């Protein structure tokens, strides 16, 4: 085992930890650099054995575009839900849908489930233990539930598949 993988088992996480530490303290002083570096080395050493291998992000630019698209969708979702909440309750027709999943790694499914929760009118509720189905609660169901399933599959799942190249 090389020196780097022995002392820095998760180099990216180490950098991230150091950056977050410096940002939280809002300072670049020697003291915080030292303390942050110690944390950035010690915490990954403790956490590395807990790691589960996950697919890497294969298309970083696509990932960035995805984040921006989801941020836009979050704004739309907020306005839609706010209008439904203050409007008459009879306009709310909730329902469940089961979305068949093409993804099979845990991390991409987590990303998809989180996105579904943050975006218009849907909250993810359960992933079946064989990872084939994502159950989603819909705040206001359109007449055809296939619309919701197609939206999740084409807008989000397809993009996540490209990002992780899986």
């Amino acid at each position, binding site marked *: 085992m090389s020196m780097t993988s022995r002392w820095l088992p998760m180099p990216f996480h180490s950098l991230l930890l150091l950056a*977050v530490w410096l*940002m*939280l303290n*809002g300072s670049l002083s020697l003291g915080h650099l030292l303390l942050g570096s110690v944390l950035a080395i010690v915490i990954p050493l403790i956490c590395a054995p807990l790691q589960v291998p996950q697919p890497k992000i294969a298309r970083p630019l696509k990932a960035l575009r995805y984040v921006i698209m989801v941020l836009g969708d*979050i*704004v739309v*979702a*907020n*306005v839609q*839900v*706010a209008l439904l*909440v*203050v409007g008459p*309750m009879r306009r*709310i*027709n*909730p*329902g*469940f*849908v*089961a979305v*068949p999943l093409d993804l099979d790694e845990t991390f991409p499914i987590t990303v998809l*489930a*989180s*996105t*579904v*929760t*943050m975006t218009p*009118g849907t*909250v*993810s*509720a*359960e992933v*079946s*233990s*064989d990872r*084939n*189905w994502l*159950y989603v*609660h819909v*705040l206001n*169901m359109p007449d055809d*539930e*296939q619309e919701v*399933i197609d939206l999740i599959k084409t807008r989000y799942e397809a993009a996540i598949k490209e990002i992780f190249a899986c």
Partner: protein
Amino acid sequence: MNFWVELLISVLLILGGVFVLVGSIGLIRLKDLYVRLHAPTKATTLGLGGILLGSMVYMSHQHGYLTIHELLITLFLVITAPVTAHILAKVAMHHEVPMMKRTRNAEHVSTARKQQAPGDTKDQD
């Protein structure tokens, strides 16, 4: 402080406040646990986002440099809020928490609990 900066901060704070308020109203008005989950996960993310943006503009203006604490708070919020909502919904499904009468496809709750494949009776795929 410059009038326009003050105006911008005020607008951001009011916008944020309105969304947080709507999220809280949703908690009272909505009828069952699943529907109620939508209010805090959605309305409050934008609400807090607005308040944090206001704070960012204020701090940047006061100190003359960009503060990034707020961005970190937003990041942690966006990562944790969906996880909480997912776990709450999952627990509710497995405890068969009662839902609004007109909830469609309520049978998904029992297929999810029994870990069966859904859709035998429906026209999916």
